[in-house]
C-alpha cells in the first residue's frame, strides 16, 4: 500500500487491474486503492509476472503492506510469499468483473457505491455513470468530503505544529511574460494554447535549481535534498478539499509539455484518476488563488516538503519603470519555507530568480 503523504496511515484496496500470471511492465497500473484523497491508481515499479495477490479487494491495510507478489525476470515462483502481510497470504482469484464503464467505476469509488449491489441500465446490463450516481446515498459523498477534510486537517496541523515557517513576498511585473504569451498563443491552435499559470510554474521550477535548500523533504534525520524537481500543484476539487499532485521534472519540460501535463493532471485530479506516485512525488508545491481575486497568498507547507510558493492574481497596477509611472500587469509571489532547512536569504534569492526569469519568457 503506497503512502500518498506523511499523514496517510492506511488505504482500502478497491480492485485489481491485473490477474495472477499477467506480465507487467514498470509503470503499469495494477490496482485501484481508496484513500482519503480519493480513488488512486497504483503503479508497479518493477517488471515481471504477477505471481499472487496478498490482499483482497475490500480490505483496508496499513501503508507499507505488500499487496501482491511479482516475480522478476528469471525469478522462480515461491510456494510461500516471503513478505509479511497482515492478511492471509493466500492467492485470491481476481474478482468477477461486471460490465461497468471506467468512469462509472471511478465514480462508484468516489461515492462509496457498491457495484456488486447495482443492476445496470446500459447495454447488456452494463452499469453506467447515471446508475452509480442514482445509487449514491448523499451520506456517502459527505463521508468522502469528511475524509478529505480530516486528511487536510492532519497535514496542516502537523505543518503548523512542527514546521517553523518563515514568509517572504515579492511583486514582479509580468507584462513581458504576458505580452510574449499573447503573441505565442495567437500562433497556436486553441487546444495548444498555454495558460499564464504555466509560465509561473516553469519559472518556479527553474528558480529551484539554484535553491536546493527549498527542494526536498524533511524527516527525522533532517533535510534531504532532491536532485529532481517535481512541482506539486494545488488543485481544488469541486466536491470540496484539494489535492496537490506533481508535475514531474517540471524544470526540464518545455512550456507546451508542461501545459499538456497540467491539463491532464487537473482533469484527473477532479475525476479521480491520479496515480499514487503523483501524490507522493512533490518536492515543493505551488498554489494559486489568483483567480479568486486574492492578491497575496501566504500558504502552509505540505509536510514532509520544506517550501511552498503562493501566487496571487495578476492585476494591473501603477508601476515605476525608468523613472516613469506606467500601467503594468503584476503578480505577487509569496514563499513559505521551513527555517530548519533554509534561511531567509536563500528564500529571497529564490523569489528574485522567479522575477528575473519572468522578464525573459522566451527562455522559459
Amino acid at each position, binding site marked *: 500500500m503506497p503512502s500518498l503523504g506523511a499523514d496517510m496511515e492506511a488505504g482500502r484496496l478497491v480492485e485489481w487491474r491485473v490477474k495472477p500470471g499477467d506480465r507487467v511492465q514498470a509503470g503499469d497500473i495494477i490496482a485501484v486503492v481508496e484513500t482519503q484523497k480519493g480513488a488512486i491508481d497504483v503503479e508497479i515499479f518493477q517488471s515481471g509476472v504477477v505471481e499472487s495477490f496478498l490482499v483482497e479487494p475490500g480490505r483496508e491495510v496499513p501503508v507499507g503492506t505488500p499487496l501482491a507478489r511479482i516475480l522478476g525476470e528469471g525469478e522462480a515462483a515461491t510456494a510461500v510469499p516471503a513478505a509479511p502481510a497482515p492478511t492471509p497470504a493466500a492467492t485470491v482469484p481476481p474478482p468477477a468483473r461486471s460490465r461497468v464503464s471506467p468512469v462509472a467505476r471511478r465514480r462508484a469509488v468516489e461515492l462509496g457505491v457498491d457495484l456488486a449491489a447495482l443492476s445496470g441500465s446500459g447495454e447488456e446490463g452494463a452499469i453506467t455513470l447515471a446508475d452509480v450516481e442514482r445509487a449514491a446515498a448523499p451520506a456517502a459523498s459527505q463521508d468522502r468530503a469528511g475524509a478529505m477534510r480530516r486528511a487536510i486537517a492532519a497535514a496542516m496541523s502537523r505543518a503548523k505544529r512542527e514546521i517553523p515557517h518563515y514568509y517572504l513576498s515579492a511583486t514582479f511585473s509580468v507584462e513581458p511574460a504576458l505580452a510574449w504569451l*499573447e503573441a505565442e*498563443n*495567437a500562433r497556436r491552435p*486553441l*487546444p495548444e*494554447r498555454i*495558460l*499564464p*499559470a504555466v509560465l509561473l510554474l516553469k519559472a518556479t521550477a527553474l528558480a529551484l535549481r539554484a535553491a536546493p535548500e527549498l527542494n526536498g523533504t524533511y524527516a527525522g534525520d533532517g533535510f534531504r535534498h532532491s536532485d529532481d524537481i517535481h512541482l506539486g500543484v494545488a488543485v*481544488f476539487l*469541486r*466536491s470540496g478539499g484539494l489535492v496537490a499532485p506533481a508535475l514531474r521534472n517540471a524544470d526540464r519540460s518545455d512550456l507546451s509539455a508542461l501545459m499538456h501535463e*497540467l*491539463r491532464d493532471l*487537473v*482533469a484527473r485530479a477532479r475525476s479521480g484518476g491520479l496515480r499514487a506516485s503523483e501524490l507522493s512525488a512533490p518536492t515543493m508545491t505551488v498554489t494559486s488563488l489568483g*483567480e479568486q481575486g486574492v492578491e497575496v497568498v501566504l500558504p502552509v507547507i505540505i509536510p514532509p516538503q520544506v517550501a511552498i510558493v503562493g501566487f496571487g492574481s495578476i492585476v494591473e497596477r501603477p508601476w515605476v519603470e525608468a523613472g516613469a509611472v506606467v500601467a503594468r500587469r503584476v503578480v505577487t509571489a509569496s514563499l513559505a519555507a521551513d527555517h530548519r532547512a533554509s534561511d531567509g536569504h536563500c528564500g529571497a534569492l529564490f523569489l528574485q530568480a522567479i522575477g528575473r526569469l519572468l522578464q525573459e519568457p522566451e527562455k522559459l
Partner: protein
Amino acid sequence: MNENEIRTRVLAELTAVAPDVVAAEVEPGTRFRDQFDFDSMDFLNFAIGLHQAFAIEIPEADYPQLQTLDGAVAYVKRQRVVP
C-alpha cells in the same frame, strides 16, 4: 442549427467541463465564474469544447465574449461556419 440547438450544445459543453453544473440552473447573463467555481483551466476546456463542437476558430482576444451562456451562444451563432 437554430439558436435553441446551439444553446443546448453550448450547455452540454459547459456541463462536460464542470459536471457539478446543472444546465437548467445556469443564469444566462451572469459570468460563469460568478456562478460557480470556473477557473481558467475550465474556461480553456470550454473554449476547446466549443471549437470542436462547432468547428469555429476562437482567438484569445475573443475569450471575454464567451464568459456567459448568452454571450457564448451569440458568439457561436456569429462565427459558425454554415455547412
